[in-house]
């Protein structure tokens, strides 16, 4: 089976890759482009560990075929910090101890960033429902929710 040539903008850089028609965007990010920050926890869109932003929309990259990325913009966890300057969410997650094992953290950060871009002042319930697609088995979500709420408050204050 011949491979498909795809050109996409990944974390701001124009990127070309060849993929099999059956490969997911997550496969390509991890196996071809060495962007292993997106994790495969289920492969069926249930855990959110592979969350990315595709043309501004939060998606599970395990449910997107790599070929569908043609001409589109992809943002992953690797693009969240600017150089050595962490995004406020990243700083707050460390400060609030909002991670234990850390495997769900990239997906949750990507999802939370997308939430705050849409809704800079979410209620606790809105944060909980927005992140309901991102499983965390370690924390009970308590410190994650606090970190997101605190980030939102700080970003509103800075804006």
């Amino acid at each position, binding site marked *: 089976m011949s491979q498909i040539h795809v050109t996409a903008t990944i974390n701001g850089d124009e990127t070309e890759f060849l993929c*099999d028609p*059956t*490969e997911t965007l997550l*496969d390509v990010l*991890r*196996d071809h482009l060495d*962007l*292993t*920050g*997106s*994790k*495969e*926890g*289920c*492969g*069926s869109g*249930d*855990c959110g*560990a592979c969350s990315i932003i595709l043309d501004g929309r939060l998606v599970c990259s395990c449910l997107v075929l790599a070929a569908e990325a043609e001409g589109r913009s992809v943002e*992953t*966890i*690797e693009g*969240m*910090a600017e150089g050595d300057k*962490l995004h406020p969410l*990243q700083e707050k*997650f*460390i*400060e*609030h*101890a909002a*991670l*234990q*094992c*850390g*495997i*769900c*953290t*990239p997906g949750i*950060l990507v999802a939370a960033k997308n939430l705050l871009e849409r809704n800079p002042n979410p209620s606790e*319930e809105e*944060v*909980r*429902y927005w*992140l*309901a*697609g*991102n*499983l*965390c*088995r*370690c*924390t*009970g*979500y*308590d*410190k*994650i*929710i606090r970190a997101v709420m605190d980030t939102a408050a700080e970003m509103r204050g800075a804006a």
Partner: protein
Amino acid sequence: MPKDEFQARDFKIVGTRPLRPDGIDKVTGKARYGADVTAPGMLWGAVLRSPHAHARIVSIDTSAAEAMKGVKAVITRADFTYQPDDPGLADVLDNCMAGEKARYDGHAVAAVAATSKKIAHDALDAIKVEYEVLAHVTDVDEAMKPDAPVIEAGRQQENVPAGLSENVTSRSKYGHGDPEAGFSQADLVIERSFTTAATHQGYIEPHACLATLGADGQGDLWVCTQGHYMVRNTCAGLLGLDAGMLRVTASEIGGGFGGKTHVWIEPVALMLSRKAGKPVKLVMSRDEVFRATGPTASSSIDVKIGMKKDGTITGATATYRLQAGAYPGAIAFLSAMCGFAPYDLENVRTEGFEVMTNRPKAAAYRAPGAPMAAYPVESVIDELCQKLDLDPLETRLKNAADEGTKSAYGPTYPAIGLKATLKAAQSHPHWTAPLGENQGRGVACGFWFNFGGDTCVSLMVNPDGTVSLSEGNPDIGGSRASMSMMAAEELGVPLDQVRTIIADTASLGQNEVTDGSRVTFAVGLATIKAARHAIEIMKERAAMTWGIDPEAVDWHDGAAHPAGPNAGKFPPMTIKEIAAIASNTGGPIAGHHEVNAEGAGVSFATHMVDTEVDPETGAVKVLRYTVFQDAGKAVHPDYVEGQFQGGAAQGIGWAINEEYIYGEDGRLQNPGFLDYRVPVASDLPMIEPVILEIPNPGHPYGVRGVGETSIVPPLAAIANAVSRAAGVRLTSLPMSPPRVLAALKGQ
């Protein structure tokens, strides 16, 4: 047991909340987990699994798969020619790759290594396996009956009474006194039967490894595990390798909760690599994780407790029947030990039965055996309190174990914190907050032993005076931060001068797996002792420089000082100054400590939860949750709180949602996160952690383990809250909407 390690002191670093050292790597996606690495020339592995619950493997034809382009190795059990003589290891091998029979849906029967994932999976489809399907049994009570299909004959121990199926492999008994006499003194005796479902640890990272094994017997393995020494020893034992020739490196680990204290795919990946002559990466799918790796045991339990009108428990018995899965060895003995551990009882007896079934081999899950042990006991105590009109916290306090209590499982307790957790619960505003319609409040206590075990730590003082600490236990919840804190505390240096790494198996001696809540206790103890060893060496170096006796040197605030006016007048020598001249005073400075750590301190918790039951749907909502637990000493309180919250959340899932569901065909019907529903953010409230600190006499800083006790009380606490809200006693987990609705309708 050493009980004199603890010395009260004022801490400078321990007990504070610094940023974790692995934080930036984990929020930027740089941290490398099991599936995140590659090797030059690497192949992809894949495993073929049995679709049958129980079947004789008549034949396996791999010829078509082997002939496919890109396929570099196909293996079956026939390739594992080394026969381990240890029966436990033989079981592990048979579980990793089925021999004569497939014993459960998902049991591995063959594996492939190929140049791409796709080719590997296509090759699995080309393998032809002929099965002779056998009768199966997946229910623990059914499996105990004399006419049940037998999973493996000849494994029953002599302590099993006659009349039970050979699937019952062992019985354990604990207790003291005469429960029958105790029941006769009671004003009320309640006897009930309970069941709990098998639940999975549900770590978000599937098992993954990258294996390289050469024809010369030398190998390297990168793996997500709770214990890379265990992986090394087990794989070496299964493949007939010398342990020293196999170097195992632990990746970052994406959750384990006990489920990564075993091996499944690692020996398979090594065998594929040896046959193919190339590195092989093998990663489980979520479906494989559910079907083939250890859930915890399901259970069937009878509990009988007698109580006087004043709340005194006069007699107590419990029988625990736990499902071991496809091989002998479950955790019923731990249930039998833990059930009544919180209480000071004159008359108590428990027994535990281990039962084989056609399910994946049960694995450890956070305080293995204890949650299903506490659930029925705490439920019956709650019902006794309801019927005798007693306060459930006061009644527990009245019967609570304390220092000097002979525990239900034998030992006499040193200083323990159960009463402190109960008193903290009594005085917390949660206890007196008003409840609304269809709402109920439940409380329950829980116990876990905590473990020590083999531990080996090395602490290097570098030429610039900074410190490198090597330990051998994967960091599953922030332990690198805790170890750095304890090392810095003991040395008297700033925290940022210490970096802790997890060394590979070739760089340190044997370390027990990260289990039993042992790491902060045992590795912490070894870290403190290694730091003290380094301090002794640095005192000698300072003494040498000053020309005085080492005994005349004190160490504090990160520097050597003359011990008193008689020692001579010398300005302090800091760790930096001593390190800078180390080459001239005897060479590099390093402390180390090797120990089989004893003195782990048992820990207790009391949980309090409010739930609301929807009378129309049977759905249960958790409204408020508070955890009171004795940590001994909270080294990094943020991560202690995280353990309390995480354990409670897993317990909530176990109590309300999570359940392995098997069909009539013996196949697992819900092997995915959509149908096996772990709690999501919108299911839970904030979980308030209250840390109690009753020092463990067996640790220099008083540390007890904290990781496991937090999952012990939730099952019962929630069952008590739901039963009070619903006005009917729930005796079967999970309390899913259909079950709750049936109970409501059955009133």
